[in-house]
């Protein structure tokens, strides 16, 4: 970015630490002494994976270290468990080169973790994707003190302030009630968002059958196998139009305006995503009922997390890093953007 920070808190001023044992490359974060890579976007010998979304958890590595839930998700996606090394939350694992790694809950999706790396008396936390709000489908984010916080910034603009999820779920239920002859078709990411949406609908007292697009089924079953109760789920392809009236139907965002949706009874198109906060983004997706539900931290959560963790340096992996850098500058916090490639944020 080239912008010089205004200054550092006094106790950091004379420090010369460069944290050179961890090196961000465009295709992943390299933990040099252990020769491991965090969420690499190309095949490596040893990968440490934060969570199961395809842009972070790719196949083809020699060994993959991740939580058991994330490995189960990856197995579902890539149909192989080769080289899988499960690491439960909180277990401090020794890696080569005197590096220790601990997977800490990130609150993003089932199995999602921050990875705490310790080496030579220094602590570095890679958040992966995270959020601070309660999610009935996964354990909550834990604040982990460290020297360097490597954070995402998907919603790193002050306009992003996600409303309470209850408010958005209430919109779905009142729309259903007002349109008994139609269905509410919600576009939601197949891993995480879909299951959280179902769990929140259940929590709000909606116990009717929820109908799924075929691409959602296996992930929902896996969540249930891993102990997340989702209630009565059925496939749209197993029923007729009449039965879908007055129901919630879930589909991946790509199916919303596609031929698939023609089988539905006059659907009201909804989309559950943090991007729905911006009217024109919702309009571009032809969404009639935008639901601002995100599995990422919003601006307040991002900045609060930096304050809570209070690291010496904040590194930003992906998202709207310019605004986060500016905020760090205004708050006399040392920060840099890493410009990693291959992380997508379009469908959250």
């Amino acid at each position: 970015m080239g912008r010089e920070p205004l200054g550092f808190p006094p106790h950091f001023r004379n420090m010369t630490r460069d944290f050179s044992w961890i090196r961000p490359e465009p295709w992943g974060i390299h933990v040099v002494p252990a020769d491991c890579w965090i969420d690499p976007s190309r095949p490596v010998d040893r990968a440490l994976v934060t969570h199961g979304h395809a842009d972070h958890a790719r196949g083809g590595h020699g060994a993959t270290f991740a939580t058991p839930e994330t490995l189960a998700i990856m197995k579902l996606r890539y149909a192989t468990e080769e080289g899988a090394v499960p690491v439960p939350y909180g277990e401090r694992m020794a890696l080569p080169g005197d590096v220790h790694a601990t997977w800490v809950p990130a609150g993003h999706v089932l199995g999602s973790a921050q990875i705490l790396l310790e080496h030579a008396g220094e602590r570095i936390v890679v958040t992966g994707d995270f959020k601070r709000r309660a999610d009935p489908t996964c354990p909550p984010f834990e604040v982990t003190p460290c020297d360097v916080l490597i954070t995402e910034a998907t919603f790193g603009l002050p306009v992003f302030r996600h409303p309470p999820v209850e408010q958005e779920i209430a919109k779905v239920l009142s729309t259903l009630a007002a349109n008994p002859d139609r269905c509410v078709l919600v576009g939601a990411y197949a891993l995480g968002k879909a299951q959280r949406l179902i769990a929140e609908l259940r929590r709000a007292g909606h116990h009717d059958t929820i109908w799924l697009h075929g691409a959602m089924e296996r992930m929902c079953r896996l969540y249930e196998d891993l102990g997340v109760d989702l209630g009565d789920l059925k496939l749209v392809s197993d029923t007729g139009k009449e039965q879908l009236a007055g129901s919630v139907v879930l589909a991946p965002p790509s199916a919303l305006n596609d031929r698939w949706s023609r089988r539905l009874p006059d659907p009201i198109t909804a989309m559950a995503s943090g991007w729905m906060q911006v009217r024109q983004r919702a309009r571009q997706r032809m969404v009639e009922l935008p639901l601002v539900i995100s599995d990422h931290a919003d601006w307040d959560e991002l900045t609060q997390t930096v304050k809570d963790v209070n690291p010496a340096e904040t590194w930003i992996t992906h998202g709207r890093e310019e605004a986060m850098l500016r905020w760090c500058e205004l708050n006399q916090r040392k920060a840099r953007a890493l410009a990693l490639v291959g992380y997508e944020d379009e469908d959250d």
Partner: protein
Amino acid sequence: MEAFAALLDALVYTRSRNAKLKLLADYLRETPDPDRGWALAALTDGLDFPAVKSSTIRNLLTERIDPVLWTLSREYVGDSAETASLLWPEPAEAPSPPTVSEAVDALSRMTRANVMVELPRLLDRLDANGRYALLKLATGAMRIGISARLAKTAFALAFGVAVEDVEEHWHGQTPPYTPLFDWAAHGAEPPNSDDLPLFRPFMLAHGLEEAQVDLADYAAEWKWDGIRVQVVRAKGENGGGETRVYSRSGDDISATFPEVAEALHIDAVLDGELLVRGAHQGGEANDRTQGGAASFNALQQRLGRKTVSKKMRGEYPAFVRLYDVLILEGQDLRPLPWSERRAALESLVPRLPADHFDISTVIPAADFAELAAIRERARDDAIEGVMLKRRDSPYVAGRKTGLWYKWKRDPLLIDCVLMYAQRGSGKRSSFYSDYTFGCWDGDPDQGAELLPVGKAYFGFTDEELKWLDRHVRNHTVNRFGPVREVDKSLVFEVAFDSVHASKRHKSGLAMRFPRISRIRADKPAHEADRIETLRALIRD
């Protein structure tokens, strides 16, 4: 304000016209006066608060948030009002939102001196959606696709009155339109506006289709290819005389055609076709003593301008070819039969400046067969076809069966090849229903290429649409966002009214009213027409 904010949001996310109409009608019915009138004015861009500008919003926000963060946010969101509504600090206490009338009242009292203090007070009483609605209302930049026509239709729907009556009474009324609501919702007398230069709804025609009429009952006129206008002069509020030129939708376009507005010195409401002078001699059967009219393409140079230079006026001089007279020197002629109005018009025209007004002559045809032959011969670009008007019919707003017919010239046809398809919206959102087609720029067997010549999204049945959608999906060779490029195999017979030279398109051509006439799945693509064939049809 909550109901207005909810309406605004719903309108943003609603694409179907009928659903928009229903939302608006429900709001107008359920909202008390004068809130609904102010809301209506806001939606149709009828409000202006000089103290609140887009720059006011920026200044207000950069007092409260870092300017860099403001700029990054504004760039991302793409709309100042929305960005500000999201960035504004949430009020500590539960807000007590103002009504629309309170907000309008407060906004209209703001001055440049106090706006930076007063506007925040209003914003602090609203949630994010309310703030968005307030700022949109204050800056008058709604851009949510509510035309004046749509608003009037919704108004008519809300209260079960005729949209023509709404049109007639609407003009001359100012926000919050209380007399209009009193009339429509409570059965009061309609507002009186005889002395104002108001728009009167146009009489419109049906297509003749296969029917034939007896020329003893109907008079025939040329259908000129300009824009239908109404030129109105009335005493005005100060009695000094005011003149307006209205377009077919009732928009005031006097500023675009000032020479026409200035030329009328008799109190009257006149119906005619606005044209520009040109080389075309105005139809073979027309009175050759009149000056000629140019094609629509020439008129297009003058359209949509807020002000018009002397040069423009000189190069494209505008005039009105009169069809009818509705009101003349205080007398409403609309109830009279066409033949009597025509007589009044014929005696009026010599009193008008000939530079800017002439009359659309009646075609002298003895019977329908002769008229058909005359129409067939007419190859003048300033003529779209023939109008047939019942001789004994009064001038009535809208389209009443059996009174006026339009008999358009047969369209021109050309065979084109489908090149790109784009998904439609609303009911057609899952269908590839917008088609771009092209013609060959030479001999396709000698390596010529297709150049796009036009775009069409109607002319086919629902069944054909399904077939076309399948064709597009099965023949896709490339994707560009919502657009698919297809292999160049399908031929369309495209119908269009005329074609003009255009610098905007690579082919150098622009078609007017192209539509899919037939799908020629039987015809090989290399037999489709060439650009030169289309170019030969230009008549500018």
